């Protein structure tokens, strides 16, 4: 049984279809990331799975339970860090963990848990005086108090400095090593690439691509390209003398390669053209290229709420 199963999930706010028929499933022990610009429906999707929002239609199951109807049961088995995690101003991390332990009726060792999330250096600091990264780490510690099977992280590193971000990543990797299922949303490609086994790219409430990052790159990317600095004469020569697809502009010529033979043909033709050229590179679409292509350049850094 998959840890998370979603099919045909829909949620509308007024006129806005925030989630528009998404389907995916997450296996036990997997790290799955929803990637997308702001307003793509990531948070709505994850909040429905956490039991914080009710869906309009479709099915959502976490550990076989309906999150909205069986929230009380489910919450004993999942851990959640909401977007922009905030807590009461005055408890210290140690007190907060003891509090959560009491609420869940679990015996916890706050110091051990704080060591696990690398927050033992601030165990007695009031929450309001913690740094952004430390707050986020406390959120992770709290989400672990009940020893959850599935952990939801909604934009766990948004607004954190690179160092704090890496510390959070380190904790997420530990969670995976412990065999827990992790679902996270992010709008940082790097984060999805670093952490996730599989990624789903969301746009306007729909999943537009899903799979491992390699799968997405090869399926939605344009494959290998040779890029060389050169003028229109080079482009003209390539088009007239080879069957390669080539495009030019801005002092660059891009040659699309289908296989290794294409590369040899291209190199030979460039040399034969006698045109001036330099800075030859071969590259393929990164996840970022694919992402921008799929969600549109303008929405890459989006605006508006979820």
């Amino acid at each position, binding site marked *: 049984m998959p840890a998370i199963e979603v099919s045909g999930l829909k949620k509308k706010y007024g006129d806005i279809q925030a989630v528009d028929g998404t389907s995916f499933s997450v296996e036990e022990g997997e790290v799955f990331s929803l990637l997308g610009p702001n307003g793509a429906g990531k948070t709505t999707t994850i909040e429905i799975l956490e039991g*914080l929002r009710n869906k309009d239609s479709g099915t959502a199951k976490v550990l076989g339970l309906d999150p909205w109807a069986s929230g009380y049961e489910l*919450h004993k088995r999942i851990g959640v860090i909401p977007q922009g995690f*905030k*807590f009461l*101003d*005055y408890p210290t991390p140690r007190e*907060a963990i003891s509090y959560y332990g009491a*609420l*869940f009726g679990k015996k916890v060792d706050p110091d051990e848990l704080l060591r696990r999330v690398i927050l033992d250096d601030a165990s007695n600091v009031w929450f309001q005086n913690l740094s952004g990264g430390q707050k986020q780490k406390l959120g992770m510690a709290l989400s672990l108090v009940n020893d959850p099977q599935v952990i939801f992280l909604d934009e766990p590193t948004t607004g954190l400095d690179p160092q704090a971000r890496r510390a959070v990543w380190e904790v997420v990797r530990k969670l995976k090593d412990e065999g827990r299922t992790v679902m996270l949303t992010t709008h940082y490609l790097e984060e999805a690439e670093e952490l996730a086994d599989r990624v789903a790219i969301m746009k306007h409430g729909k999943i537009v691509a899903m799979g491992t990052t390699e799968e997405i790159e090869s399926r939605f990317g344009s494959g290998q390209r040779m890029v060389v600095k050169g003028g229109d004469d080079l482009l003209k020569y390539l088009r007239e003398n080879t069957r390669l697809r080539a495009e030019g502009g801005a002092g660059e010529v891009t040659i699309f390669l289908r296989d290794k033979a294409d590369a040899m043909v291209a190199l030979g033709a460039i040399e034969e053209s006698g045109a001036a050229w330099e800075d030859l590179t071969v590259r393929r679409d990164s996840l970022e290229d694919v992402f921008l292509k799929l969600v549109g350049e303008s929405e890459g850094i989006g605006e508006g709420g979820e």
Partner: protein
Amino acid sequence: MRFSLSRTMSDLKVYGRSSLRSREGFFFTLVFPVILILLFGAIFSGGGVSQSTVYVQNNDTGPVGAAFVSALNSTSNYCSNGSSAGLCLRPVPMDVNFSQYLSSKSASDGIVIPANFSLAFESGQEVNVTVFGNPSSTTSAVVSGVVAEVVNGFNVRGAAGVHHVGIASRTAVSSNYKYIDFLVPGLIGFAALTSPMFAMVNMSSTYRRDKVFKLLSLTPLTKTEWLLSKIIWYVCTTVVSFILMTAVGVYVFGAHIALNWGIGIFLLLGPFFFVSLGMLVGTVSNTPEAASVVGNLVTFPMMFLSGTFFPVSSMPKYLQAVAHVLPLYYMIDGLNEVMIYGNFEAAYIDMALLLAISVVVFALAVKFFRWRED
């Protein structure tokens, strides 16, 4: 119900500790009530009670009226000794209009014994002695106190403790002896109102904004447990306020206060009601700003019109009518009854009313306030 007292107590521990660590919480819980009572006590009780003249019109020709006057005289005849503070009784002829007589003497304090006083008293009918007074003057409070004592004496002497003689106040005088005596219950009511109301209204909106409610909804803690822990906390702070204010009232200003279990009931019911009300009000609005506006709309009329700083009976009739729909009025009225008059029968009504609306508002608060969204 999945109610757990241990979860409630864990939440109480965290919340209480947070409140004490926050400067505002500490100030409004412990310091502010003391400042209030020192301030108001000093303003209204300064200078002590000086000698004052009280006009007495005995319209009764029978023996009981005369006995009443002599009883009044025996408790408070200080006319001969100008140096000591107290009351000096001056008789007023039967045939004059008492109100006009008072104004002609520029006096506000007076006592009128009705014409049928002896007859009514002897036949066991109810009859009122009318006390004229100015609520802003401390002497009026003294007059009504003295009259109350004498009336009590008469009632005890009358048949089997039946209350035949009552006091009808004119203009107003509801407190006994001194302003400070009713200021203490008034300010306890004030503390029971303001501290939970402001905290809950603010909390309901900021917790929602910061998604703390969502966070809590992901734990086994229930809304009822959460709200109950706040009620327990504010019962504690109200009790502390009560102790501080009563201590200041008694030791600094010489307030006369009777300590009894009835006070405890109101110290429980007040915070129970206002925590629930604050939460209910907080659910109405989405932003902290709007919440505080709605909170103030509910809080401010109660703060001033429920008998906190001034007795309700000193207010014009239409404002008294307003006071009677304000829940805080019943808390303060009840506290007055038990702390000053020891009149438990009147306080039972206040307790019952307060309990009933508290249960209703608590239930509504639990129903309407949402951890999570649809």
